[in-house]
């Protein structure tokens, strides 16, 4: 792989940029790149060339629901933003900070030893707040005046320490309150999540008992075995729970698909998840990825090819609107 100048040949650098080398070859190359700035720079330039080449792809717009789906996932994975530490801890932290992981350990010079001059104050805030008191002063001739200044300085330092201690106590109390409040919210949301998971498990578990309740048919009349379903939908959040029973089995290569029928008659039905009934004809669709805020006129179910469709294929097997209540 190396050329006569003991560098990776330009042709092989292009293959590295394209990630087309075998694992062994790539490992050899990475070992060289770690120590060779010239090869690293050329590789970076090649990556830039590839970025430009990637841009020559014909532009396509992602599916309309892709953004909704991403934002839903983003919303589910909320970030925890770390709280900044109090100022007086900053200096020791900086000096003890771990080295950057991309550099070898032995390349990092040892941190300078932490030494405090005898006159240096122990608390940083104090040194900032009362720097003027601790600045070297001109020699004082009269010993009485020296004693007086020393006395006042002592009182000032004591007052400063008291103020800092008070501030720290207040800060600690605020943080403690915030922590307690967060803990309480976490406990409440954990309980709510557990309950929601239990509801979800009960709705979707095939092993649990699922029974439809009807008015008993007159004697001698067999109970209805017609397919039926119930949909619960919250427009604002886009939450949808769909439960169906007495469904006929779907043929191989086919699937049922649920559709939200928008109230806006010009809008196309929104695909809301595919499903196959279990051996007893029961099926559920729980919280499919659909856009929020869509006013729905009703819901429909069609049979589609496995994998689902973007537009419903007639006939509609089950349908219901808010006024019909027929789903």
């Amino acid at each position, binding site marked *: 792989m190396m050329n006569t100048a003991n560098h990776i040949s330009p042709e092989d650098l292009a293959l590295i940029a394209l990630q087309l080398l075998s694992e062994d070859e790539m490992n050899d190359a990475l070992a060289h790149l770690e120590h060779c700035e010239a090869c690293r720079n050329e*590789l970076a330039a090649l990556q830039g060339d590839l970025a430009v080449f990637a841009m020559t792809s014909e532009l396509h717009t992602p599916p309309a629901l892709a953004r909704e789906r991403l934002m839903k996932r983003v919303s589910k994975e909320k970030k925890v933003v770390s709280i900044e530490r109090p100022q007086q801890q900053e200096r020791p932290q900086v000096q003890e900070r771990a080295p950057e992981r991309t550099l070898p350990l032995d390349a990092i010079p040892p941190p300078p030893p932490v030494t405090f001059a005898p006159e240096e104050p122990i608390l940083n805030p104090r040194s900032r707040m009362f720097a003027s008191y601790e600045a070297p002063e001109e020699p004082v001739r009269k010993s009485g005046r020296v004693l007086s200044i020393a006395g006042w300085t002592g009182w000032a330092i004591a007052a400063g320490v008291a103020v800092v201690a008070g501030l720290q106590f207040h800060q600690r109390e605020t943080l403690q309150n915030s922590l307690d409040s967060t803990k309480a919210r976490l406990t409440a949301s954990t309980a709510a999540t557990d309950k929601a998971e239990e509801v979800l498990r009960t709705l979707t578990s095939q092993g649990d008992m699922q029974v439809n309740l009807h008015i008993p048919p007159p004697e001698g009349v067999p109970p209805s075995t017609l397919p039926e379903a119930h949909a619960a939908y919250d427009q604002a959040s886009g939450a949808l729970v769909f439960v169906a029973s007495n469904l006929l089995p779907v043929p191989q290569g086919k699937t049922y698909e649920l559709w939200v029928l928008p109230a806006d008659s010009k809008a196309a039905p929104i695909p809301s998840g595919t499903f196959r009934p279990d051996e007893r004809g029961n099926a559920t669709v729980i919280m499919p990825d659909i856009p929020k805020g869509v006013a729905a006129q009703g819901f429909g179910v069609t049979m589609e090819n496995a994998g689902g469709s973007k537009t419903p294929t007639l006939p509609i097997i089950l349908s219901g609107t808010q006024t019909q209540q027929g789903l």
Partner: protein
Amino acid sequence: MDRDDQVLTTATQNAPDDAALLARVQRGEEQAMAALFDRYSRIVYSVALRVMRDAASAEDILQEIFMQVWRNPDGFIATRGSLGGWLAVVTRNRAIDSLRRKKPTEVVEEMSLPAPGNLGDEAERNLMMEKARVVIARLPAEQRKTLEMAFFDGLTHSEIAEMTGDPLGTVKTRIRSALLTLRKGMQ
């Protein structure tokens, strides 16, 4: 400058740059993530679609790439050049890994990419794309084809040599030459 131009210029000037958006993503602002998606989803999706040749798989890659940005915005830092370029290359690599059913391996994530322009600016991005397409169209056919097979199909130089019947060295030289011509053409 007519009114439309003024509106366009104002909109561009008011749009936060990539570094500002990434900083907001780092603070957990979902709106910043939505803005990044609006800015770069077409590039990411188009590259993924070109490699995967399947809309559903391309969307999977799209989701994966943007979730990676959401989870780890530090993965890209401002000194690594253009976010758009970085996303395009990472998308291609992730799509090829997916085709080959390999675990994701990203050398580029540790690399510093030179910025080919301000890709955060839509007008500049479109101009750059057009220019790159012209340069690529002018490449000798065998160079262009070889680069496309390596980049978009993820074929190794050995596989390309086997398919085209060209010597291995010729394949490697064509890839390198095509990239160099592209670099010069964009300067």
